[in-house]
């Protein structure tokens, strides 16, 4: 029977899911023109959950017969997810109103998805991993198709759904094979077991990897990303780009370092290849994009490649903790810059999908200097340029990769960073060096989001120590 301690382990989760369910009902009572109340309630839920999550700092426990864990790793990621959730609501707040999407379900679905993401980090059993994966994905399918007025949104939703389900099929089959090989679905037990068939285990692990690679949009499982990112409402895209990616990586980390360190010999090669391919592919494909959403989509693909670098040495006990910490650090850096950038995209987006071409950014530097400066900061951060968090993150990342002995991967990393500079700079060029008459929507929460992100991106780059400590202490035990 479940013990109270079991619930303590998933306390924040529980709160959030209950809150979300309650909100679903409460929302029915909120009149249509006052849906902002729902937004605030959703945000409050996230905030409450965040406070409980932070209260869990420094503790660790397992629950439900080892199905879920709560440790520094999960706390770190949960907090990050919750912050992402808050940011997502902040950028969506005015946007959904402006685009005529203001419906209560938006926020509820968002909360459900965040719950799934949090569960992802806490999962200690493949069954829970699967559940979490679906819990985060299904609301996202709906959110992607949320703009019913626009066929692109439908299309994005359906594509995401079909391909997501397709990749889930691989995960499920992979889990089945792993179960067959080890007789258990518990991560810790998998490590402890003696597999009956190493081939089965390896293939199973590989299939699970494919599922996660799909979620984080690693090449060649990335092809849905640009379409979905472009078609989905921008506020959803921002959420997806950060949350889903973080969730994918947290599960990947959890599963692979807990269950499959023994497979590192094989998996390292595959991760290496995935990482390299993703960095190269994402950056090259981003070059010629003329739509800012698509460009950022490819950029998010590329960043998945960089973060994947941190996983490559996961089997090396000496380097793995540092590497994983660097991966977590980079996730934070990426999430912050990412939200800022999407926030600015939202600020420029007009209804009917106008204002999304990069050329629409012309003249921004002159007309909206602060906004342009913030965008510049995000672009520099995504390149990995001082004085931004992106540089510190990349520095950390490359360092751990080199410490793991993967010099060539690091070289690919820096070279692709160079390539990426070109397309990020194009945004800057357009903003500052082309003449134009851009128009920007200014909303408090939106401005707050990108402003805060920009500030954090710069300030944290000078004081990354605290984040370093957090990321390092979030290591898997």
């Amino acid at each position, binding site marked *: 029977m479940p013990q109270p301690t079991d619930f303590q382990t998933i306390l924040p989760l529980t709160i959030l899911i209950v809150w979300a369910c309650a909100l679903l009902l409460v929302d029915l009572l909120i009149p249509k023109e006052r849906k902002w109340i729902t937004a605030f309630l959703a945000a409050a839920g996230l905030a409450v959950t965040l406070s409980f999550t932070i209260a869990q700092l420094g503790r660790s426990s397992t629950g439900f017969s080892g199905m879920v864990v709560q440790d520094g790793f999960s706390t770190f990621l949960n907090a990050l997810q919750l912050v992402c959730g808050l940011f997502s609501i902040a950028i969506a707040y005015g946007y959904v109103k402006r685009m005529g999407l203001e419906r209560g379900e938006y926020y509820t679905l968002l909360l459900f998805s965040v719950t799934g993401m949090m569960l992802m980090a806490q999962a200690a059993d493949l069954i829970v991993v699967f559940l979490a994966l679906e819990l985060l994905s299904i609301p996202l399918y709906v959110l992607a198709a949320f703009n019913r007025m626009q066929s692109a949104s439908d299309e994005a939703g*359906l*594509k995401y759904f*079909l*391909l997501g389900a*397709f*990749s889930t099929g*691989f995960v499920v089959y992979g889990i089945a094979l792993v179960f067959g090989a080890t007789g258990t679905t518990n991560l810790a037990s998998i490590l402890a077991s003696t597999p009956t068939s190493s*081939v089965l285990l*390896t*293939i199973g692990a*590989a*299939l699970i*990897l*494919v599922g996660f*690679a*799909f979620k984080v949009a690693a090449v*060649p*499982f990335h*092809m*849905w990303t*640009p*379409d979905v990112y472009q078609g989905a409402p921008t506020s959803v895209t921002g959420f997806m780009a950060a949350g889903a990616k973080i969730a994918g990586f947290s599960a990947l980390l959890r599963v692979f370092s807990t269950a499959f360190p023994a497979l590192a010999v*094989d998996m390292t*090669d*595959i991760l290496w*290849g995935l990482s390299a391919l993703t960095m190269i*592919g994402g950056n*090259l*494909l*981003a*070059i*010629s*994009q003329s739509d800012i959403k698509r460009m950022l989509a490819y950029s998010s693909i590329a960043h998945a490649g960089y973060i994947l670098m941190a996983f490559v040495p996961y089997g090396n006990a000496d380097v793995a903790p540092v590497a994983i910490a660097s991966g977590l650090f980079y996730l934070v850096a990426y999430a912050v810059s990412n939200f800022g950038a999407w926030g600015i995209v939202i600020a420029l987006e007009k209804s009917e999908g106008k204002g999304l071409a990069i050329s629409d950014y012309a003249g921004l530097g002159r007309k909206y200097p602060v906004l342009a400066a913030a965008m510049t900061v995000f672009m520099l951060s995504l390149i990995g340029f001082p004085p931004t968090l992106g540089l510190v993150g990349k520095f950390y990342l490359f360092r751990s990769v080199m410490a793991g002995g993967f010099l060539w991967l690091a070289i690919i990393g820096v070279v692709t960073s160079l*390539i990426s500079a*070109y397309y990020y700079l194009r945004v800057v060029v357009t903003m500052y060096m082309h003449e134009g008459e851009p128009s920007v929507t200014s909303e408090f929460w939106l401005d707050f989001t990108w402003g805060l992100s920009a500030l954090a991106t710069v300030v944290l780059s000078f004081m990354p120590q605290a984040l370093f400590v957090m990321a390092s202490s979030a290591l898997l035990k």
Partner: protein
Amino acid sequence: MQLSETISTGFLFLAPWLVFFPVIGLLINLIFGGRMSEKAIGWVASAASGAAFVVSVLLAYSVSAAHGEVLRWTLAPWMHVGDLAIDWTFRADSLSTTMMLVVSGVGTLIHIYAIGYMHEDVRFKSDLGRYRRFFVFLNLFIAMMMILVSGDSYMMLFVGWEGVGLCSFLLIGFWYDMDTLGRPSWANSNAAKKAFITNRIGDFGFLLAGFLMFWKLGSFQFDSVFEAAAEVAHNEPWVIVAITLFMLIGVAGKSAQIPLYVWLPDAMAGPTPVSALIHAATMVTAGVYLVTRSSELYTLVPQAQYIVAMVGAATALFAATIAVGQYDIKKVLAYSTISQLGFMVAAVGMGAYVAGMFHLVTHAFFKALLFLSAGSVILGLERGHHHLAHHGGHGGGHHEEVFDPGDMRNMGGLRKTMPVTFWLYMIGTLALAGIFPFAGFWSKDEILLDASLHYPTVYILLSIAAFFTAFYMGRQIWMVFFGEARHDAAAHAEESKPIITAPLMVLAALSILGGALNLPFEGFHNLGHWLEYTLHEVEALPLNLQVAGISTALALTAIVVSWLIYGRKPLTKGQPDPLKKPLGLIFTGMENKWFVDEGYWAVFVNRYVDISRFLADYVDWRFWHDFVHDKVIAGTYNWLSTIALNDYADQKVINWFFDGWGRATQWLSATTRKVQNGFVRSYALSIMLGVVVILGYLLLKP
């Protein structure tokens, strides 16, 4: 004794003022010149130069009071890096004070002359700013020349060495917006540039000599270098040979020797006082001074000495032949200068340092005299031309012919219109031709005597050159001053004012009496004894009647021959040179400077231009910038992005795969329809392919 030493060191502190006075002069003119009258500018500059002369005299007195001891005055450190230690140290010894006296003495006279001469420039060409500029440059030149001769190390010498090159550049290009005839043109500035660059080639040699010197002899300071040289010459003689030969490149540049003499004739584009001061009397003799100063190095390596002597002798003869074929009064003198410099270089090359220096001094007198007189002639013609323009029949001056006041073919009969100038010019000519008892006779004779004793080849070359010298000077005299005026301007020429002729008279006196400095008689080797303090081994030769006789005979013959050709039947207007017909091609060669300029142009200058254009346009820009960077690197980059733009990689490739694969697996499909592209499905295929590749890798991995 005590007293004189006190006095000598008492004057030594003035050494830096050799430089400071002219610098103060130029600063006054530079800063306040705008508000000063024309006269004041000129006199300030002259006074500055004169003050330097006074300092030179005092220093010379100090040196003699100290019995030739080398006096040094360190002003400040200059470059101290590691073992390298170069100071701003002024050196007064008999050699340097001799040079100081010549430079500041002749310099002052020319300053005064220029007050009058440049006034004409202002009058005719009406640009008052230029007047100030001229004296600023002239003072700068004196300052630089003083650094050159008073430096106690090779590097300080080099500062002056390049500095005078700069002044030469500035003054040759003084009328930078026209040619020698006053037409708008690049010609003068080209001449200036040519001078500077040619000099820089020489400086390149000097620098290399310096590097070698420092690393092999350990210093740049004269005495330390000489001290170290003896041992090195013993162990590694090539070092000294290399140093001296590199230095010879510098000498060739500065003193206009083969192969770098080509700039000097063009340098005549500058105002005449400049030609006299810089390009005859002082700057161009710096090379001679350098070799003399380095006598202790040259003495160690006879091979190098021989080369120096041969270069000098060859230059002397070569330039003299060219002088014969020139029509421009200053060009003749320019080639004559090159030729005389050849004499000096030959002399110092042979080790006859006193003879070289002696000739340097007398040449400064009479060549300055000649140039200034030529300037006076030119002014006279210009005045005549001006007179014509005002009174003559050139109505309105619409179609004014271009008149060259320096062309000897426009002259003739000036003896009558410009008598003072004529006599001064005569004195200069006789001195240059080496006619007894003018200064040139004594100095040239000493060189010839030395050559006859040790270097027969040099002796023969120089003797022939001496013959030519007398010949072309005779030709000049006959063409300019005798016969009938071949141009109206010459007929209306006016004598120059006293401010111009007065300095000339001083120089004329010096040209007559200058020989007394070092007469080849026992007890009269004044210069020799004076320089002996510095040069140590000085051979005091008695007069050799045979050598003197031959050279005098040659000179007289040459003058007579020139009379036969040019004097007996004076040239008429439009008549070609009488030598042209009998000498034919040879004369064409002489007239055209043996086509050396053209040769240099074809071999070096144009090639350099071609190469740099090629490098710039083709290699650097079209190939490296446009092709490699923009096409290959940026192009590849863009090509990749075009792929992405067309989604070849992202979609088409997958679709292409899909098509092929689809056909192969049609049997799987329940329908027989042709498998079409479907984006969602192609994305799924991409996932599938990824899975297949990963699984394949895992299963097939060795």
